[in-house]
């Protein structure tokens, strides 16, 4: 196996099935994500984008294939080694996944407190600052997640993901459910986090405007494989009919929308 020093995350031949192997979600995924790079994964809903990210996070274990982070095989490491890796990871879940039992500020500061990066008192100040970045005022600090709209919950989830300045950040559909202006704020924020902090960013989206803005590179997932990957500029002349159909949102084409949703 070639050891590529620049690769922060490397997936090779990742396969993930459910229902005892009957439902193949990821067939053979190969993807390399460089250090400090921002990669966007696009693909129709239900193609396994979230599953791909969960495999990288160690929340799901692939059936076969390997995933390395900083050159270390994360599938076969001990729980404590995995915890060390998680220290430098941030994740925005598709439905935010805020903790219902905790107020907003504790949600945002959860990782900081858990990792003993600061005291509870300082953590609250950091929460204020991170909430400001995602366009939320300190009024929400003591509310509970159920008192916020889903778009606001998403932004709190984003603040939580970036709160401890992680080296790798995963964004699962960061702009879904937001109005176009707020979506742009979030896009800019992701670009900011990626460029100023130098974090490696992996974003899932089917919002092409967002993908173009955020991504250095775009990869398209279809039928359990990455069928195309390349620089963002190249996506308009990919010569791949699947990609063309997807980015232009056409019904006609090789991708068949069979009884979805």
């Amino acid at each position: 196996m070639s050891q590529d020093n620049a690769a922060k995350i490397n997936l090779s031949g990742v396969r993930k099935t459910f229902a005892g192997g009957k439902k193949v979600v990821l067939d053979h995924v190969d993807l390399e994500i460089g250090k400090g790079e921002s990669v966007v994964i696009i693909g129709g809903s239900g193609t396994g984008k979230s599953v791909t990210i969960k495999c990288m996070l160690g929340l799901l274990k692939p059936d076969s294939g390997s995933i390395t982070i900083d050159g270390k095989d994360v599938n076969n490491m001990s729980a404590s080694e995995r915890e060390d890796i998680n220290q430098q990871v941030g994740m925005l879940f598709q439905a935010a996944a805020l903790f219902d039992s905790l107020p907003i500020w504790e949600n945002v500061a959860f990782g900081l407190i858990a990792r003993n990066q600061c005291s509870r008192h300082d953590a609250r100040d950091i929460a204020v600052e991170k909430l400001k970045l995602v366009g939320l005022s300190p009024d929400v600090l003591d509310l509970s997640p159920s008192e916020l709209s889903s778009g606001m919950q998403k932004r709190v989830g984003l603040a939580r993901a970036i709160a401890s300045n992680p080296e790798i950040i995963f964004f699962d559909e960061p702009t879904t459910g937001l109005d176009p202006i707020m979506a742009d704020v979030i896009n800019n924020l992701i670009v900011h986090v990626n460029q100023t902090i130098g974090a490696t960013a992996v974003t899932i989206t089917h919002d092409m405007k967002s993908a173009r803005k955020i991504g250095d590179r775009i990869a398209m997932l279809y039928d359990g494989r990455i069928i195309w990957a390349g620089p963002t500029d190249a996506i308009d002349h990919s010569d791949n009919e699947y990609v063309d159909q997807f980015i232009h949102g056409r019904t006609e084409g090789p991708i068949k929308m069979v009884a979805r949703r």
Partner: protein
Amino acid sequence: MINPLRPIGSAFLSFLETTGRLVMFTVDGLSHCVRPPFYGRQLLRQIIEIGFLTLPVVGLTAIFAGMVLALQSYTGFARFSAEGAIASVVALSITRELGPVLAGLMIAGRIGAAMAAEIGTMRVTEQVDALTTLSTNPMKYLVAPRLIAGTLMLPFVVFIADVIGIFGGYLVAVYKLGFNPSNYLQNTWEILTTLDIVSGLVKASAFGFITTLMGCYHGYHSGGGAQGVGKATTNAVVSASILILCVNYILTLFFFTKDVAG
């Protein structure tokens, strides 16, 4: 053609699988109870939830149980003109059996269900996954504090239930059946031994562990959606209740075999 043995075989295999999963879950949960970091706030929240917020429900159960015991044993014993035995019947039944079992079952309904629903909801809304990504082990953060609080607090709750239950019997004996109050208390006091109380509290501790374990286990392995969480909740209550009754028999056998044999 379907082989008739096949469903039996697969039911047996899935039983083994579930048992194995439960054993691993238990071992894992217990190991997190003794390894730092400890989540004091979570533990405190569970202690309040299990140890104090359940007291009204358990107290009501206990007082009626004590009252009905006094009434029933009076109608029974009056035939043998042995009314004096009522205090003993109430005290022994409450401390040895009814206190722990009724409190255990009530708590299985209240706490076991709430835990399964809360952890199950956290599972299906990916909050459990979110904990992992925030460097927090969900077994340690969610499961361990609940197991500890259940095991430690149920003896306390049952002790209160014992007192209230005996008081319920006293109320009926004194105000309805016209017994002498100080004689009744004296009888109660004389019949009770340390073993009666301690065996009840040990049972309570076991029931607390069982209830919280079932709540956590079923919540943690909850299937998708509201339906999955509903099923997890039901399973938690049913399995905890059955296990409580089963373990109660085993512990009674352990504590009182001597009496039975002699």
